[in-house]
């Protein structure tokens, strides 16, 4: 097997265990553990007046019941505000168990521990909690009107007013040749990984240490939070993310109440305790994302070039703000996309509602920003009678304008300066891929079959790989095995494969010898987490740097043995050799043995490194000053700022005017994430992202009623797409390497989801000639738009005169 694997579609190494049922997910751990179950609030907003546990006490197998009264020290304080921000003026977080008040349906009130989950649930359902109901705030408009308050002391329901501007937008709009204003909405969806959250904790009373497994995207920070909240020394806590059954953002939030309560119970009870979230709990007890109201005013010239953009958005953050205002910031800063916007002002008000918290879901505010910007482009095109691709082309940042400074501050506190890209190139490829000029012919053909056909497009730029850092550790063992560790976690992205490819390529070893561990604080305790399409950029580069450190040391040691200049050495297939001199070689595993001067020969290979076997200079110590034993290296990658990936999507829809069913018949993606480690994995990420984009445009929403009850908290009613709902996707690639990191890569995880809603809204509008100002849209809602007496037509509607309901 070649060792130059960077860029190859290497088949995934993790699959070997996953396809035979030998994965190890959270609920596969701890067969003997006690089980936790939770009593959760059935009310969206209420005061707790009484908790009566009497009925549960005679349930056989009951071990313990915990309420807020049982929490002490830091556990009795609110959960942390993970990402404080000066503009988050009124942050609020819940308690691990409700402290007198509940603010959304699903908030945990009581934890029950029993000998198995069935019995824990038996006991939980016998606990009677009495509530005094309070007025409920549901939806971004109700929060804005503030007829009642989610948190009494925040009467306007505003948690934060995030504001950025790049110039005098009022003056720029006043001076614009043309302006237009509109309001639009985007609804809530959720990450909805197939595996919910889960926690297993084991306390070892003999050495006072705690091991926690959590289905998390941030094991190192979960560890720190557990240590802080349970008042344990950091070194007494280890947290491991086992195989994780999908994350998409929801598992970056931490510490979830359960991540603290389960370890707390394990310590108090001296027994293993486990909680595996069920699906209903995941709907009402984890996190959602996306809902915004957007008011947009744009100034532009007769040529369609934007001169000023003013955006005022209201973002529904749910009941609490544990993740700060990251989603509003991302919307605000990523909204501008690939376009040069001379003057831009954005205000995002983050408002409380009595609903599940809102934290990043794949895209993390970008789909909303893209929806705002791309629909603005469509409106300008419509107003001027220009082709939608042409309006976009005229506003694109040009390839010679990089680095391009938007004069905004990104989610990492760093400037939004695009590192590299070729946006006209993306657009040209997209037009070719979807045959943009051939749409009218397809429309006519569809019309002959009685279908309404329309096309839409959307472009995006995605800040990926934000800091502050990730690290990597690479160690060559005497067996020749290469151990690689990084602290961030994996939820299906194939890190065991991509990172092994990087090490195999950098170090010159067979990939079969490389073993990658992620998300295990025992192996790598410093990390940030897996979010914001950052794993390949951050840990990929850190691991590459660590591998380069190992390589340098290996060459230095090998050079002594081979009596050669390190610059004349190369490593291939795990063997160090002198370039152009066959036979002058030493296996890397032998170098690893020699790197560690020994007194004791514990095995055959070790003999070579013992004190009487190895010649050495009498006037130098066996381990030189500044050197260390072992063929290993630890390194970190800390970027000056994010890299910016980009892409363009086009969707073609066919609508049946009898049923108003919307069918995505073509979906084209052009994607640029810089250098690609594994194109098979990147395409897989794009496919998955597109599916979630289509889902968010046509199928998924969180249907809350006015009382704050989630009406569709099951897979029966929340319409996650099956294979039959996801269109075939055609993909073209462009590679604009990032100049910011050693490998030239940008992130790819979230990209596929970002433009879906915008492109599909545009396509439906193109097909029907009616304004689509709220997404997602169901056939019923489209029917309502079509038969509405006060429907708003697009200027292009003249072409669709026969269309109506």
């Amino acid at each position, binding site marked *: 097997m070649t060792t130059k694997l960077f860029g190859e579609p290497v088949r995934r190494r993790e699959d070997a265990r996953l396809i*035979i049922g030998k994965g190890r997910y959270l609920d596969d751990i701890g067969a003997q553990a006690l089980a936790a179950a939770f009593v959760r609030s059935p009310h969206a907003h209420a005061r707790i007046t009484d908790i009566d546990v009497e009925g549960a006490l005679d349930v056989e197998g009951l071990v313990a019941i915990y309420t807020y009264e049982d929490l002490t020290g830091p556990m009795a304080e609110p959960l942390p505000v993970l990402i404080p921000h000066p503009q988050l003026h009124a942050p609020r977080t819940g308690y691990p168990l409700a402290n007198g008040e509940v603010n959304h349906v699903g908030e945990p009130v009581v934890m029950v521990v029993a000998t198995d989950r069935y019995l824990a649930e038996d006991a939980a359902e016998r606990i009677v909690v009495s509530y005094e109901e309070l007025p409920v705030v549901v939806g971004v408009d109700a929060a804005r009107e503030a007829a009642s308050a989610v948190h009494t002391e925040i009467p306007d329901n505003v948690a934060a007013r995030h504001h950025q501007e790049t110039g005098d937008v009022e003056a720029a709009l006043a001076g614009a040749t043309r302006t237009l204003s509109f309001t639009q909405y985007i609804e809530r969806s959720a990450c909805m990984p197939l595996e919910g959250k889960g926690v297993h904790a084991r306390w070892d009373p003999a050495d006072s240490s705690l091991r926690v497994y959590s289905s998390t995207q941030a094991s190192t920070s979960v560890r720190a939070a557990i240590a802080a909240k349970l008042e344990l020394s950091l070194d007494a806590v280890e947290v491991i993310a086992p195989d994780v059954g999908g994350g998409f953002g929801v598992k970056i939030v931490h510490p979830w109440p359960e991540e603290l309560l389960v370890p707390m119970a394990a310590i108090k009870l001296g027994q293993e305790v486990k909680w595996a979230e069920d*699906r209903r709990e995941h709907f009402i007890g984890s996190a959602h994302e996306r809902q915004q109201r957007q008011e947009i005013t744009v100034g532009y010239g007769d040529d369609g070039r934007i001169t000023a953009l003013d955006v005022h958005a209201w973002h529904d953050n749910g009941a609490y703000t544990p993740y700060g205002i990251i989603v509003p910031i991302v919307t605000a800063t990523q909204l501008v996309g690939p376009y040069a916007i001379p003057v831009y002002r954005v205000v995002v008000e983050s408002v409380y509602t009595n609903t599940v918290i809102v934290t990043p879901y794949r895209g993390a505010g970008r789909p909303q920003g893209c929806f705002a910007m791309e629909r603005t482009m469509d409106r300008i095109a419509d107003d001027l009678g220009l082709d939608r691709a042409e309006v976009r082309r005229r506003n694109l940042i040009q390839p010679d304008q990089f680095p391009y400074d938007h004069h905004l501050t990104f989610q990492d506190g760093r400037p939004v300066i695009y590192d590299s890209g070729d946006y006209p190139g993306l657009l040209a490829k997209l037009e070719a891929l979807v045959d943009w000029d051939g749409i009218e012919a397809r429309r006519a053909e569809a019309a002959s079959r009685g279908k309404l056909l329309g096309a839409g497009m959307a472009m995006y730029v995605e800040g990926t790989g934000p800091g502050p850092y990730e690290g990597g550790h690479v160690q060559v063992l005497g067996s020749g095995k290469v151990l690689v560790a990084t602290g961030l976690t994996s939820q299906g992205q194939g890190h065991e494969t991509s990172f092994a490819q990087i090490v195999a390529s950098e170090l010159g070893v067979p990939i079969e010898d490389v073993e990658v561990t992620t998300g295990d604080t025992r192996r790598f305790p410093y990390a940030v987490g897996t979010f914001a399409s950052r794993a390949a950029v951050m840990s990929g580069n850190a691991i590459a740097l660590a591998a380069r450190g190992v390589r340098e040391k290996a060459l230095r040691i090998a050079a002594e043995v081979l009596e050669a200049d390190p610059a004349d050495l190369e490593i291939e297939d795990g063997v160090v050799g002198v370039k152009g001199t066959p036979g002058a070689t030493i296996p890397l595993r032998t170098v690893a043995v020699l790197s560690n001067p020994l007194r004791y020969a514990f095995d055959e290979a070790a003999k070579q490194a013992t004190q009487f076997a190895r010649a050495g200079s009498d006037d130098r110590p066996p381990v030189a000053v500044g050197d260390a034993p072992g063929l290993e290296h630890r390194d970190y990658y800390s970027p000056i700022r994010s890299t910016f990936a980009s892409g363009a999507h086009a969707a073609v829809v066919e609508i049946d005017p009898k049923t108003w069913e919307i069918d995505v018949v073509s979906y084209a993606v052009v994607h640029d994430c810089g250098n690609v480690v594994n194109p098979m994995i990147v395409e897989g990420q794009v496919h998955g992202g597109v599916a979630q984009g289509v889902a968010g445009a046509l199928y998924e929403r969180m249907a809350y009623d006015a009382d704050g009850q989630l009406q569709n908290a099951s897979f*029966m009613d929340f319409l996650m797409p099956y294979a039959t709902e996801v269109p075939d996707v055609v993909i073209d690639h462009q590679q604009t390497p990032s100049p910011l990191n050693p490998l030239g890569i940008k992130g790819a995880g979230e990209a596929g989801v970002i433009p879906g809603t915008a492109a599909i809204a545009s396509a439906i509008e193109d097909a029907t000639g009616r304004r689509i100002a709220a997404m997602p849209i169901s056939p019923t809602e489209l029917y309502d738009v079509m038969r509405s007496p006060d429907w708003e037509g697009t200027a292009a509607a003249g072409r669709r005169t026969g269309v109506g309901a």
Partner: protein
Amino acid sequence: MTSVDVERSITVTVNGVPREATLPVRRLLSDALRHDLGLTGTHVGCEHGVCGACTVLVDGTPVRSCLVFAVQVDGASVTTVEGLAREDHQGGQVLHPVQEAFRECHALQCGFCTPGFLVTIAAGLEARDRSAEITEEEVDEIVGGNLCRCTGYANIKKAVRHAAAAMRPEHTGHFGGGDGAW
């Protein structure tokens, strides 16, 4: 003693091995497999029969094990993902063509839904006329009842086509489907 505490002994052939267990009558088959028999390859994604992650074969037919009580399969033969591969003559393991195809086609990411897809597809492909080329409609029919949140299904469908091709009678390729083993 309430009705939920009533226990019953059952005998089930799981992946070809007779297993006995004494279980509360309310124990779901999914929980019995995972927690009583230690076969954690079968996953639970929704507990209401929609996602298909928990699918196992009961007497060869795909069944949502979260919707079945363990006592209902007394006397039956159950195949889980752990039982898809066959042992070869040297004590090694020969993967089912659909397992090979999933790996080859990158048809899984997080892997949580994968066991349900694998057993469903295996049953679907074994039940069809293997000599005929598989149609897109057949592919949709086979995979259309299982949820995956990672892959967007494109590569799962590709894997079904790959596996179907490998299982055609005339095929002698590396999937080893030509000997009629599957």
